[in-house]
C-alpha cells in the first residue's frame, strides 16, 4: 500500500564530492561494457522527465561507429517549477563533469558540452572555474576529454534534445524529425549522448557506490532517488532528494500548507492531480502502482484552495503559445486555439461543450505533434479541464 509508504529523504546528489578524482580514475580504468552493465542494472532512467533508460542510451551511442562523438549535458532547465539542475551545477559541478567524462570514455567521445540556459548565465564563471580544474586533472591522468559551456538564449524548446542540437549548430531551436535518433545522429550529425544534469549526477552515485545501492531505492520501474523542486503554496519550498515511488498523499502531508487543492506534477507539461486523487497517485515512471503513476522532471507545484485553476491553465497555455517553436501545425495553432478557447468559454462566447472539442484537440496534439512539447500540452490541459471543469466555465 503506497499510502503507508513513508516519504524517504535521500542524500546522494548533494553529498560531498571530494573524491571525484578517485571516481574518475577508477571508472575510466573499467571496461566500457562493464560501466554500461552497471548503469543498466541500476535501472536509472533519465531525470529530465522523459525517463529513457540511461544505460541503454549510452550503450546505443557506444555501439555507433564514428570517430567523432559527443557527450552533452542538458542544462536547459526550463520547465516551469523546476530548478534542481541549477543547484546541482552550482553545488556539485564535479559530479556532473566526472560523469560526462566517464560517458566519454564509455562511448568514445573526447568532447563534452554543457548546454546552459541563458537564464543561468550567472552560473557560468564558477562553472568555468570547475571545468578548468577538471580538465587540468584529466590532463594529469592523461585522459583526453574537454568540456565547453554552450549558452542558450531564452528558448524553452531547446531543452528538447534535437532542438538543442540545432541550437548548438547555430540555428533556430526547432526539433528534428526522428529517426534518426541522437545515439546515431545527434550534434553535428555525430553519435551523441545527451543527458540531463541530474541524470549525470546519479551516474556518479552509481559509479561510486555500485548499481545496487541505487537500485535498492525506489520501487519497481522507478528505481533510485530523485530531486524534487517544490514550489507554490508550500511552507517549505526548495529542493529535496526523495525516493521514487512515494505517494502524493504523503508528499502533500509533508509539503502542503494544510489546504492543498491540487498538485501539478512535472511542470506545465505534466499533470495536475486534484486532492481526491492524491492517495492513488504515485510519483514514478510507467507501470501502475496503486493508481496513477506520474513521471516527472521533478517539478512539484502545490496549489491551495485560494487558487483559480482557470488562471493556472491560462498561465500554462500562455507559456506554451510563446515557447512552441512554431514549426508544426498541431502545436503552433493548437496552443493558440486552446488559449483562446478557454478564454472564450470563460467569457461565455463559446458554450461549455466547446471544452470537449478542445479536449479532443489536445488528443490530436498528443498524437500528431512533432515533439514532446506539443504532445504534452494535453497533459495539463486535460487533467485541469477534466478535474476543474466548473472553474473553467464560471
Amino acid at each position: 500500500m503506497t499510502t503507508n509508504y513513508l516519504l524517504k529523504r535521500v542524500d546522494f546528489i548533494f553529498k560531498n564530492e571530494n573524491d571525484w578524482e578517485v571516481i574518475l580514475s577508477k571508472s575510466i580504468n573499467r571496461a566500457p561494457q562493464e560501466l554500461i552493465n552497471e548503469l543498466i542494472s541500476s535501472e536509472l532512467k533519465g531525470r529530465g522527465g522523459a525517463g529513457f533508460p540511461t544505460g541503454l542510451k549510452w550503450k546505443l551511442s557506444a555501439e555507433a561507429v564514428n570517430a567523432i562523438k559527443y557527450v552533452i549535458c542538458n542544462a536547459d532547465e526550463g520547465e516551469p517549477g523546476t530548478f534542481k539542475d541549477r543547484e546541482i551545477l552550482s553545488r556539485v559541478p564535479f559530479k556532473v563533469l566526472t560523469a560526462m567524462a566517464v560517458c566519454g570514455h564509455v562511448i568514445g567521445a573526447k568532447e563534452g558540452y554543457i548546454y546552459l540556459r541563458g537564464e543561468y548565465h550567472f552560473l557560468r564563471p564558477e562553472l568555468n572555474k570547475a571545468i578548468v580544474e577538471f580538465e587540468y586533472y584529466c590532463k594529469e591522468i592523461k585522459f583526453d576529454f574537454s568540456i565547453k559551456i554552450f549558452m542558450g538564449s531564452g528558448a524553452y524548446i531547446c531543452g528538447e534534445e534535437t532542438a538543442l542540437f540545432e541550437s548548438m549548430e547555430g540555428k533556430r531551436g526547432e526539433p528534428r524529425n526522428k529517426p534518426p535518433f541522437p545515439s546515431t545522429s545527434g550534434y553535428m550529425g555525430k553519435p551523441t549522448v545527451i543527458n540531463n544534469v541530474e541524470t549525470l549526477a546519479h551516474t556518479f552515485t552509481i559509479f561510486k557506490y555500485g548499481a545496487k545501492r541505487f537500485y535498492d531505492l525506489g520501487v519497481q520501474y522507478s528505481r533510485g532517488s530523485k530531486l524534487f523542486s517544490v514550489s507554490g503554496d508550500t511552507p517549505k519550498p526548495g529542493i529535496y532528494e526523495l525516493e521514487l515511488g512515494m505517494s502524493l498523499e504523503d508528499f502533500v502531508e509533508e509539503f502542503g500548507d494544510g489546504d492543498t487543492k491540487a498538485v501539478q506534477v512535472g511542470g506545465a507539461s505534466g499533470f495536475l492531480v486534484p486532492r481526491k486523487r492524491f492517495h492513488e497517485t504515485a510519483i514514478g515512471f510507467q507501470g501502475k502502482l496503486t493508481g496513477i503513476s506520474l513521471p516527472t522532471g521533478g517539478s512539484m507545484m502545490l496549489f491551495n484552495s485560494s487558487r483559480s485553476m482557470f488562471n493556472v491553465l491560462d498561465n500554462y497555455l500562455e507559456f506554451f503559445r510563446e515557447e512552441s517553436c512554431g514549426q508544426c501545425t498541431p502545436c503552433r495553432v493548437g496552443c493558440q486555439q486552446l488559449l483562446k478557447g478557454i478564454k472564450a468559454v470563460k467569457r461565455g462566447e463559446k458554450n461549455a461543450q466547446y471544452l470537449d472539442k478542445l479536449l479532443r484537440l489536445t488528443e490530436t496534439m498528443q498524437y500528431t505533434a512533432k515533439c514532446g512539447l506539443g504532445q504534452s500540452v494535453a497533459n495539463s490541459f486535460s487533467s485541469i479541464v477534466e478535474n476543474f471543469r466548473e472553474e473553467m466555465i464560471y
Partner: protein
Amino acid sequence: MNPVTDLIKNLADEYGRERQHLLPILQGVVEQEKYLSEFSMVEIARELDLPASEVYGTATFYSFLEYKKMGRYIIRICKTITCSMKGKNQVLLAIEDMLKISLGETTPDGNFSLLQTNCLGFCHKAPAMLINNEVYTELTPEKVRDILSSYMKKQ
C-alpha cells in the same frame, strides 16, 4: 571602423566563423550592445558568410536576443505560474510606477528596459527577475524599489 564591426570581428576570431558559432557571437554582441541592430546582423552575416535572413531568423527565435533597441539594464520579470501566484503583478506595478514606463518600454534616458520572461527557475523564491544577468528573488514592491534605486545610483 565602427566599434560593432570590430566587436564582431573579435568575436568571430575568438569563436570561429562556422555556423555553429553563430549563437555565441550573437550573444557577445547582445552582451555589449544590449540588442542586435540591423547593422550588427548584416555585419555578422558578412563575417560568417551567412545569409542575413538566416541571422535574423535565428536571432528572433531566442527571446534573450533582442533586436530592438534596449536600455543599459534590461529588467526581465518572470511571469510564469509560481511568480504570478506570489505577487509578480504588484512587483511589476511597482517597477512601472518607479520607472514610469510600461512593459516593453525603455526609459527615455536609455537606462532601463522592462520586459517579461518565462520561468527563470526560481519558483521556490518567487517572484523573481533578472536585471541583465543578475537574479533577484523573493521580490516585494519594497524590495524592488531598493534594487532599482541601487541601479539608478550606479550611473
